[in-house]
């Protein structure tokens, strides 16, 4: 072990690495938002009385959960242009993360919806609320509350998965780190540093999610 540590490239590149962190957090938060929308929308369609819609959602979930994320992001970035859909790296990454996270979110949120006592639905219906209102006003919040820990760990995973977006050169921490490493060959210093940065970001994200849960999903239970 005669390796001499040299953090100069990391120190010089630190502002760039911090910008990379912001890129990563941006991808993660945008991806999560999209995933929530897809998750909730998917659950509504998944349990709708229109059979083809239900099948469509099942097929979507199976497709996404049984194929690699890298292939999904390559598909959007390299294959869709042949269909006339051309997206920049960052939108590509956000859509890939959102669609992938959304497929998992559908299954998780659906579990929460199914855990809601049937009496809640009946009480809502008996008060003259329509089916959609019952879902939105009565079922959704307790359902999300019930599955929050699973959803949160899925979203931490999504945060870490943003690094795969470096494969299409989206602006995020791993891409930035690669550039610095390519110029300096200081692999250990660079990847060691961003490992810690990812750890800190995961921790921040967990705190953020817990805060959101306390703010929007909390109420007293027995």
């Amino acid at each position, binding site marked *: 072990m005669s390796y001499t540590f040299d953090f100069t490239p990391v120190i010089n590149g630190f502002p760039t690495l911090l910008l990379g962190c912001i890129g990563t957090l941006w991808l993660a938060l945008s991806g999560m938002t999209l995933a929530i929308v897809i998750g909730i929308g998917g659950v509504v369609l998944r349990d709708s009385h229109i059979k083809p819609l239900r099948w469509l959602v099942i097929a979507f979930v199976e497709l996404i959960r049984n194929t690699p994320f890298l292939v999904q992001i390559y598909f959007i970035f390299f294959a869709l242009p042949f269909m006339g859909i051309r997206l920049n790296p960052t939108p590509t990454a956000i859509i890939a993360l959102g669609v992938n996270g959304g497929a998992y979110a559908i299954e998780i949120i659906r579990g929460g919806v199914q855990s809601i006592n049937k009496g809640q639905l*009946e009480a809502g*219906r008996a008060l003259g609320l329509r089916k959609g209102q019952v879902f939105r006003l009565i079922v959704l919040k307790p359902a999300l509350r019930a599955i929050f820990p699973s959803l949160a760990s899925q979203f931490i995973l999504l945060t870490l998965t943003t690094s795969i977006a470096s494969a299409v050169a989206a602006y995020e921490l791993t891409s930035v780190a690669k550039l610095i490493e390519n110029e300096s060959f200081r692999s250990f210093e660079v990847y060691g540093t961003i490992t810690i940065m990812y750890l800190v970001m995961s921790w921040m994200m967990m705190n953020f999610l817990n805060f959101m849960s306390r703010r929007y999903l909390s109420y007293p239970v027995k």
Partner: protein
Amino acid sequence: MSTSASSPAAAAIAPMIAMEGVEKWYGTFKALTDINLTVRPGEKIVLCGPSGSGKSTLIRCINHLETYEKGRIVVDGVLLDNNPKTIDVVRREVGMVFQQFNLFPHLTVLQNCTLAPMRSRGLARDAAEATARRLLGRVKILDQADKYPAQLSGGQQQRVAIARALCMEPKAMLFDEPTSALDPEMVKEVLDTMIGLAKDGMTMICVTHEMGFARQVADRVIFMSEGAIVEEGPPAEFFQNPRHQRTKKFLGEILPRY
């Protein structure tokens, strides 16, 4: 919406709820057999019978929480068919109180009471809250308006559930074993609330085993067995001289407890 007759006198005797030849099946099991029941405005009915006799199913048909296969149900002049619009009209006119309260856990007591008036009747928040506070006062629980259901006792929760149903200003109320899930010491506060409601002239159908309540409040007691109405009559007559063997047996099993 009502098919009210031209003369006030005729309107006065038009039934609030009419069930004619109603039958319901769960697959091959016949849950309700030829149910004929007419409830006048302001009338109080107590439904009793052994478990599985179809009491709950019967009242759940009235607000279409259960479908029925044969016969017809008319609520306040509205024929209850499978049309979602008609169903919603009827549900806004008929309040229901459940055995398990079914309060919405994520909403405060006040929000539980204003949700449907605002979202289903389209009331403004101020008006909905004013009505809710008035009715929470009536069930003597106004001081808990900002608490969440989990912070209340069972009896308090059930009184909130009654207030919540009343906030829709229903023309009739259905009670599905409202005291069965309560600890004994909380039964009275809920029954007292129901007695008050009855005195104010609400049309009520109550599925309950509280025979003291039936004696005090009911205009008619109806006994069901195996999905059919076996016997009915004013409480005095019903309890003194039950005619059917099954009624006698049921009362014999249930009355010594009281």
